[in-house]
């Protein structure tokens, strides 16, 4: 074997290693309440609102990792800013239990296994008092095992595989409910059913990412409180929609020409994109090249900025959300602080989309949950914090969280449907959460 060929194999090995080094997502869940009894949790109000004395004593150290580099860094940056702002606000307003708070964040490089080993280090070597979950499904799933091993309360903001988390002290704040594979698509299709030109047929285009796969195809077997079936595809059929095409693509796909041709060929009333990040804009551009615009379009987890940047192509597109920077969300506890602080910090960081929405809302809520638990039990004991969180209603920027132990610490699906109208996102469904003067709009 020549040197050049040996080098070739080395290069291929390197390439393979890089290709394999990827994966994560977004979602979360709620925790248990005994016998359905819940008590109001005054401590869930942001401590920031009660201007307090300077914190004193030994700092309370909260550790965690984020994907500060690697493929998930673009979104993890949102969580970094939210965390920095929350901790800063906390310390400006008396800290936690009267003590200053220190946030130690390590870079997991978008790698789940690295995230797990860093949590091991944070807990066993650095001796952090509390932990905050990392960003993304893969890292959260891996890190949760470490938290469980040491009995740490584990709030997390962006895990999408609701059924996979059985740890009794995990507290998700992507508050979509355990059975989100049923509730999310049903909510979306119900919104579309209110239209005069309600869609009668649908085409699915799904990223093979585990979270989007779960939401579109559901699960074959239920277990405990997890219901079998579900998935947008089955729910669509149950609700009378005709499925004309079901296409999937792999993570990292950049060329959507072939998929666009198939979407345009069947011309369904609704295009359901089970995608994330920039999948939507890329598909829409490929459709535009064919002079085709879907009459109705839904996108599971789009990056909000790039969707707006494709202009008219995305007009009328819908998605689901748990937080948007306007009413009624801005009346929720802590929402004004989130909006003001995050927007300023994101602008200072030079981000292209500075408004806090789903990601920032999930992140802020995770910090609200953690601090509510500590303030609620007035302690740093993980068992007591978890018990308090399970027994109380937590007020967050997303609304009220009631964690239910009998649903793997998930609760109700409190998502709403948002839509791009006049070049911006607005909440349009359900009506009691709709932005002022906005409702679900049909084609044209």
């Amino acid at each position: 074997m020549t040197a050049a060929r040996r080098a070739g194999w080395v290069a291929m090995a390197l390439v393979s290693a890089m290709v394999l080094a990827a994966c994560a997502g977004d979602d979360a869940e709620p925790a248990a309440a005994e016998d359905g009894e819940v008590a109001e949790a005054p401590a869930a109000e942001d401590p920031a609102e009660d201007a307090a004395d300077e914190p004193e004593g030994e700092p309370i150290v909260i550790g965690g990792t984020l994907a500060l580099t690697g493929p998930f860094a673009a979104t993890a940056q949102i969580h970094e800013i939210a965390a920095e702002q929350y901790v800063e606000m906390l310390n400006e307003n008396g800290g936690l239990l009267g003590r200053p708070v220190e946030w130690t964040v390590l870079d997991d490089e978008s790698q789940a296994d690295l995230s797990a080993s860093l949590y091991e280090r944070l807990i066993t070597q650095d001796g952090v008092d509390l932990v905050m979950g990392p960003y993304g499904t893969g890292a959260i799933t891996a890190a949760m095992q470490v938290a469980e091993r040491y009995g740490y309360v584990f709030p997390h903001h962006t895990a999408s595989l609701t059924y996979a988390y059985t740890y009794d002290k995990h507290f998700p704040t992507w508050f979509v409910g355990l059975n989100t594979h049923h509730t999310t698509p049903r909510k979306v299709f119900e919104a579309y059913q209110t239209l005069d030109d309600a869609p009668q047929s649908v085409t699915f285009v799904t990223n093979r990412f585990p979270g989007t796969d779960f939401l579109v195809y559901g699960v074959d077997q239920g277990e405990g409180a997890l219901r079998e079936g579900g998935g947008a595809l089955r729910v669509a059929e149950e609700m009378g929609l005709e499925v004309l095409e079901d296409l999937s693509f792999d993570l990292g796909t950049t060329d959507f020409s072939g998929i666009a041709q198939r979407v345009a060929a069947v011309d369904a009333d609704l295009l359901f994109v089970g995608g994330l990040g920039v999948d939507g804009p890329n598909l829409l551009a490929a459709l535009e090249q064919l002079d085709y615009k879907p009459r109705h379009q839904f996108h599971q987890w789009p990056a909000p900025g790039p969707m707006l940047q494709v202009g008219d192509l995305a007009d009328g597109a819908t998605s689901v959300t748990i937080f948007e920077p306007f009413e009624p969300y801005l009346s929720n506890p802590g929402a004004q602080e989130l909006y003001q602080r995050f927007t300023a910090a994101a602008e200072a960081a030079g981000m292209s989309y500075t408004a806090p929405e789903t990601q920032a809302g999930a992140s802020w809520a995770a910090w609200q949950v953690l601090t509510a638990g500590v303030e609620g039990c007035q302690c740093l004991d993980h068992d007591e914090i978890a018990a308090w969180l399970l027994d109380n209603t937590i007020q967050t920027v997303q609304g009220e969280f009631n964690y239910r132990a009998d649903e793997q610490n998930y609760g109700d699906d409190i998502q709403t449907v948002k839509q791009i109208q006049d070049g911006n996102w607005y909440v349009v469904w359900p009506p009691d959460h709709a932005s002022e003067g906005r409702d679900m709009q049909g084609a044209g």
Partner: protein
Amino acid sequence: MLILLQTLATGIVLAGLYSLFAIGLSLGWGLLHTINFAHFSFVLLAAYVTYELSTAAGWDPVVTMVVTAPIGALLGLGLQLFVTTFKIDVFGTLIVTFGLFLIFEAAMAMRWTADLLRLPSEINPYFTSAVRIGPIRVSMLLTIATALAVLACVGVWWLLKHTRTGRGIRAFVQEPEMAAAFGVNYPQLSLVIAGIAGATAGLTGTILGMYLSLTPTVVEVWIAVVFAVVLLGGLANPIGVMGAAFVIGMVESFTRQFADPAMARLMALVVLIIVLVFRPEGLFKRLVQEARE
């Protein structure tokens, strides 16, 4: 029939983009013995330059090629000077340029943050525009990439085959001592190749700057397919690169159209593995030999 033609056209322009991306890497590897992992960083840097010039200075993104190509060429020259000066062998270049790749990634994250940056549609109409040939439509951006790829590959082929510079380089690659004895100044000639390879990286970057949402890691998804094209095409063979890109583009395009789209990239890599097992010199062994004669 129309679907078949449309799929074919899509595969061709996809191949154009792959060729443009891979030609510089193939030249560096085959003629300079530099496995330039930093080629991907050069591409991404050029993409960010296109973004910056278009959003901040209001340039038409296509016009930014007059800046990105020279930047790429300068980076290529700089790397080649470094490799020559420190006499780094082929394995060493892989390690060194991989290190450079990581440094570039970190530097770009510091400059442009990890945020997703996309050229707004009003200054990047190419993103959604199509070229129409009868009922067939293909992406305007990929068509531009294909035109550039043909220019680059044919130009390089002509340079290697029909110019004194090309003959000198090929002679040195085959018989270094003999070529040197005949007065071939390899260090000087290698700079020409390095500059061309870098310039193609710059051009590719401009295309990707218009095609993708940029983050410092976005280029990683291209590594596998670009290396596949290089290895399938045979090193330093521009026509082979085009042929290999055609095969991969077609495999991907037909898989997306007629089978499970999620299998498209996997199918392309399966083709690579099969070829490497049965034809380790690549798909175009005869062409490679001819090009070297």
